């Protein structure tokens, strides 16, 4: 967990497991070893175990697909197709990357392919082929009052976040979702998206600063009366 306390979703990296000394968190190595053993059993004929293998990651597959497609029905369909593709192609999983990274990579490819079918070549954005961070100006303010996560119970705040994410380019959305929502490392994000780590960092920088720039003007003026603002927009909860 990074020092700065961003509560990244770490389900890709750690799993809660029960032991004699109570519940503890499995390390990435333990998870990989456990998954390798399950994969071997599936390939030996215990096919039903594939359900258990993917269960921890199914939410992540949906979110990854949604990050590209921005449509619930398509994201669900792509997540399903990706799981079937992974099942049929399990023999080709070599274990060089984590199983979860491999699964996400399949999903991203499926989602990109779906998007190409619907939007043609518009997907091939060239906005950041180089690794230049450019001259990026965030939304500058004098102070920021922390918005606690409990405020996410309010639909309006969730909507504001989702709308800001939707305004990012597909490439920026991908890395933001994988790194900051899924909690994948820079290396895993690079493996899943098929670009180098330098480009992942540049895209992440741009995505995060864009989010700041899009959301601060909306949220900061309302912070002192955030509860009132949210209530007014919701017409009550």
């Amino acid at each position, binding site marked *: 967990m990074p020092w700065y306390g961003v509560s990244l979703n770490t389900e890709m990296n750690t799993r809660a497991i029960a032991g004699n000394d109570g519940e503890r968190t499995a390390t990435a190595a333990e998870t990989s070893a456990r998954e390798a053993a399950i994969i071997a059993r599936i390939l030996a004929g215990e096919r039903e175990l594939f359900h258990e293998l993917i269960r921890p990651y199914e939410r992540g597959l949906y979110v990854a697909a949604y990050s590209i497609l921005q449509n619930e029905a398509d994201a669900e369909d792509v997540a399903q197709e990706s799981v079937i593709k992974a099942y049929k192609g399990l023999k080709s999983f070599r274990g060089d990357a984590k199983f979860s990274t491999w699964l996400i990579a399949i999903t991203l490819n499926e989602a990109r392919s779906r998007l190409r079918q619907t939007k043609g070549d518009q997907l091939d954005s060239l906005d950041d082929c180089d690794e230049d961070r450019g001259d990026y100006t965030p939304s500058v303010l004098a102070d*920021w009052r922390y918005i606690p996560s409990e405020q996410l119970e309010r639909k309006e705040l969730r909507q504001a976040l989702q709308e800001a994410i939707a305004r990012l380019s597909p490439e920026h959305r991908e890395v933001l979702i994988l790194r900051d929502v899924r909690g994948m490392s820079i290396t895993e994000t690079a493996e899943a998206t098929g670009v180098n780590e330098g480009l992942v*960092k540049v895209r992440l920088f741009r995505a995060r600063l864009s*989010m700041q720039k899009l959301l*601060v003007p909306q949220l900061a003026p309302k912070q002192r009366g955030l509860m009132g603002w949210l209530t007014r927009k919701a017409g009550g909860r």
Partner: protein
Amino acid sequence: MKIDCRHVWSQVSDYIDGTVTPQEREAIERHLANCRHCSAVMDSTRNILVLVGDKRTFEVPVGFGERLHNRLQESMNEQKRGE
């Protein structure tokens, strides 16, 4: 090392990820201690990432898991029949 606001903004993401050098970190922190604007940029970016990373921000459709496993099972059954 003395740095300006623009330099701090260019390092916000790496600083949050903890991938800046110790010297760079020290310079950024010295700057943040004296610049409330950059401090607010850093705080707001971190805060937004905390909110984005929360499970409540992206909810899967109701019944998603069940439909996923049903479709997978259908595919498994089809494969079995074909063998």
